[in-house]
């Protein structure tokens, strides 16, 4: 009774709520017209607030205590030494001169041989050939050493991530309590924009391989834990029960039932961990991590599209090779199971011995002879690639500029500028009041509280106007992501053919390290805010599209059939059945899209987005701006939390409304 009347009154209030939001927006517009330019808390690029100076001083103090504070002396410094040594060791093996040699232990021939052997033994002939070709191309592009540096960093981070992540994942798979404990931590690790924790890390681990490894691990451990836990958890309860009924101890159930049944999933986790690590290992160039990331970063900073493209290409090739090899390895688990006893153990041993023998010979050659150690300069075609990319970029800028300018101006003037003018041009208290009111109306009281606290925090951080400029870009990018997500997602969810065409593209988009996008986009649009937005859209759209498609596919076939048999047109089917029923997927797509966009804010700062992204980037390079950069990083996280909470509250409210509505009938 009471519940029914409550839902009735709630439903009755719904339209009014919508009008209230409109009213608040109108009020804001009026306020903007009257109070434009007042209390906007603008802060110049080199200007600092007392807080920023204080942060600078605090960071200096931490720097100074590195060799006196016991936490550093007995804990952090050891971790740093260990990580540095680990990376240096792998580098000595494959990339850097070491052990009184002018060259690394394994030369190019040895590395190519070993990589191919591994691909052959864990994957198949096809990926082995791909691996050989891919590794050779690093040398051909003239980036052998840089590539090996990236590989060394990635492999070290992956090995450490798996060593930590897989056992924790198994634990999280077995224990509900630990799973509950670790999930929000992982959420936080994954949603925190990657660039934000780079600078603080250098405080503790200094600039260089150790910080880069920690940053990469922060990014790469969550998938290892999550996917392992998922694999352990998804083991069929029927099978587990059967094991228990036969008297298996929990250790036996883990060894004989859970782990073997989760093995394929765990290898998928390894794949995800490797991809995450590679992506982060490139980004870590911002804190002086060695490798391809450095090359791209330097080229981006000097707007040298050709060099950036060349190095970007090497990153993509490495991503593709690593992805294919690990995917093939996970499929091989299945195949090996199939083959069962048909293949003899002896045959496999012979194969392993043979392949490793060949690799060992190649390794020995590359250890002993210079020709096999140093990639021949004659085979270096990198300069051609660079020049070709430069030429294409120039051509595109010259010839496509008419079209790209139309798009750019349309979006900039039509969407971005109005957003930015209103957000950054209104008094801070007006924006805050409006945001809190909207959060209250579409979300919940709690969301409103988070909004109020978050925005006040931004004010305290002294970066109000920069934050509003960033927020405008973020919102525009998110709108674009959702447009793309809805259109492509619905198409993909409804058509198998579209799925077949789009999915590999999206997969490629997701596995490619973020830096790489910037290169062609930069080539087309030059360094502007708009470039940053497009880069963010390219980065975030695949996730949104996939989630929407997943939701559309998840709609029960019976319901769709019922609607079709009732005579619904395609458009009615989409708008009245599939999208409403996939709504939770769509909102999830929106919030994930938003988080992905936010995590690209800093990258945007590299290509002319300004605002918070620039503050962070400047903090990396200029000592006196470190404090401001840290504050900007915090501001990005705060914005993310506020947007995420409001979005979640709004989703929850909409779900409840839909639920209450359906109950009334």
């Amino acid at each position, binding site marked *: 009774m009471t519940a029914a009347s409550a839902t009735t009154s709630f439903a009755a209030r719904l339209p009014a709520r919508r009008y209230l939001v409109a009213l608040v927006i109108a009020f804001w517009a009026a306020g903007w017209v009257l109070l434009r330019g007042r209390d906007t808390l603008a802060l110049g690029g080199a200007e600092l607030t007392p807080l920023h100076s204080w942060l600078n001083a605090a960071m200096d103090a931490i720097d100074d205590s590195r060799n006196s504070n016991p936490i550093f002396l007995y804990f952090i410094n050891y971790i740093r030494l260990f990580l540095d040594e680990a990376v240096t060791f792998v580098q000595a093996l494959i990339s850097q001169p070491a052990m009184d040699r002018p060259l690394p232990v394994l030369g190019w021939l040895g590395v190519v041989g070993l990589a191919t052997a591994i691909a052959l033994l864990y994957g198949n002939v096809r990926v082995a050939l791909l691996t050989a070709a891919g590794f050779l191309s690093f040398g051909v592009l003239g980036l052998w050493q840089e590539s090996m540096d990236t590989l060394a960093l990635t492999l070290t981070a992956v090995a450490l991530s798996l060593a930590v992540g897989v056992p924790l994942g198994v634990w999280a798979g077995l224990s509900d309590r630990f799973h509950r404990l670790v999930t929000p931590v992982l959420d936080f690790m994954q949603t925190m924009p990657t660039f934000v924790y780079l600078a603080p890390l250098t405080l503790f681990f200094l600039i260089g391989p150790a910080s880069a490894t920690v940053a990469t691990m922060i990014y790469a451990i969550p998938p290892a834990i999550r996917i392992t836990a998922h694999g352990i958890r998804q083991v*069929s309860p*029927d099978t587990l029960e*059967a094991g228990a*009924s036969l*008297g298996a101890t929990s250790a036996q159930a883990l060894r004989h039932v859970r782990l*073997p049944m989760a093995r394929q999933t765990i290898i998928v986790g390894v794949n995800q961990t490797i991809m995450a690590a590679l992506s982060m290992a490139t980004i870590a160039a911002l804190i002086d991590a060695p490798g391809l990331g450095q090359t791209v970063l330097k080229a981006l900073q000097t707007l040298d599209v050709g060099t950036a493209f060349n190095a970007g290409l090497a990153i993509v090739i490495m991503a593709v090779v690593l992805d294919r090899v690990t995917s093939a390895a996970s499929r091989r688990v299945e195949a090996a*199971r199939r083959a*069962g006893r048909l293949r003899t153990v002896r045959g496999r041993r012979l194969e392993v011995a043979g392949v490793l023998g060949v690799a060992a010979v190649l390794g020995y050659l590359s250890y002993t002879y210079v020709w096999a150690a140093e990639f021949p300069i004659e085979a270096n075609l990198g300069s051609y690639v660079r020049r070709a990319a430069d030429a294409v970029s120039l051509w595109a800028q010259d010839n496509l500029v008419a079209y790209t300018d139309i798009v750019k101006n349309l979006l900039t003037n039509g969407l971005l500028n109005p957003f930015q003018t209103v957000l950054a041009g209104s008094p801070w208290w007006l924006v805050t009041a409006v945001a809190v009111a909207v959060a209250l109306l579409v979300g919940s009281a709690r969301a409103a509280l988070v909004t109020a606290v978050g925005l006040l925090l931004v004010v305290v951080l002294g970066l109000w106007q920069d934050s509003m400029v960033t927020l405008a870009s973020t919102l525009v990018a998110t709108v674009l992501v959702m447009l793309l997500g809805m259109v492509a997602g619905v198409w993909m969810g409804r058509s198998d053919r579209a799925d077949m065409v789009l999915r590999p593209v999206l997969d490629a988009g997701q596995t490619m390290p973020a830096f790489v996008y910037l290169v062609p986009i930069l080539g087309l649009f030059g360094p502007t805010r708009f470039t940053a937005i497009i880069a963010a859209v390219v980065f975030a759209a695949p996730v949104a599209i996939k989630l929407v498609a997943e939701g559309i596919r998840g709609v029960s076939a019976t319901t769709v059939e019922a609607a079709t048999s009732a005579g619904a047109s395609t458009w009615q089917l989409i708008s009245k059945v599939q999208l409403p029923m996939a709504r939770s997927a769509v909102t999830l797509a929106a919030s994930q899209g938003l988080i992905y966009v936010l995590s690209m804010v800093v990258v945007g700062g590299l290509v002319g987005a300004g605002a918070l992204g620039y503050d962070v980037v400047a903090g990396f390079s200029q000592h006196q701006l470190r404090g401001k950069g840290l504050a900007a990083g915090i501001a990005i996280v705060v914005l993310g939390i506020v947007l995420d909470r409001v979005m979640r509250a709004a989703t929850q409210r909409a779900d409840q409304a839909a639920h209450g509505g359906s109950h009334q009938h």
Partner: protein
Amino acid sequence: MTVPSVAERSGLDIDAPPVLSVRGLWKVFGPKAESVVGSSLTRKELKEQTGCVAAVRDVSFEVRRGEVFVVMGLSGSGKSTLVRCLTRLIEPTAGEVLLDGEDVRKADHRRLRELRRHRMAMVFQHFGLLPHRCVLDNVAFGLEIRGVAKQDRYARAREVVALVGLNGFENSYPDQLSGGMQQRVGLARALAADPEVLLFDEPFSALDPLIRREMQNEVIRLHHEVGKTMVFITHDLAEALKLGDRILIMRDGELVQVGTPDQVVGAPADDYVRDFVSDVPRSHVLTLRWIMRPPQSGEPLDGPELGPDVVIRDAVHAVLSADRPVRVTDGGSLLGVVTSAEMLEVIAGGQDR
């Protein structure tokens, strides 16, 4: 009408102590489950007042050695919970489960594992096979986890695989087998441990009707060959009547009736059971004992003789072709007579008695 006792019908020794004895068993799901034990509220009242669901309420029964004991009920009646309480795959809330006089509920973890490894084995509805192991390794799994050496366990597994008719499939993987064959693997796995009691949780529900019948016959055959005590859960009345020496009928977690198939059909305990068995052709289940009557004076008593436990269907020809009443005798003494009138009534008349 007198209700025949089990002992008269089956050859089981009812004086021997039961293998499995369940007394006052409760399983309550929900907060403060213990406090609900003993409550007489209906399921709905219970849910509303305490938030608890009593899946098994005060169930007591005994299973005799060598018997096929069927627990039957619709979905949600608590039968699967009940069978899981027997080996504590689900922990009972109250009551006793005695296996050869030993209280299973008092066993510690180690003892419970011993029990599961050696004395009770279960066959599951969805098989619960390990997809990454071949048939032989699946069957040997129970032996492996109790530490039997490789050679010995494979030898035993091969034996059982042959017993369930899976010769030649030892190296196949579960997903290469049909549902019926997968369940044979499940059966073999349970048999491999040579347990005293076999528990079946709706083992054939997921199979199509033809395979189901084949598997039922397989169980009957195995029961003849290995003579295990079996507790068999099903929602299929025909299956219960076909396999069960005795049938326990459950509703809403409560025991409604325990009896032999002809007792359940011939003398339903209440309207629920009556409704349940109303579609069963009575002549297929009831025996002559159920329809015989005392001879009337003047009736000729020199007709053919039949035993009291002959199923009516099997006596039709003899009774209808005789020109005088058929005598129902047991060990020479006359129990009653049956004529075509009684036969036709039960065959044609049917349901209401």
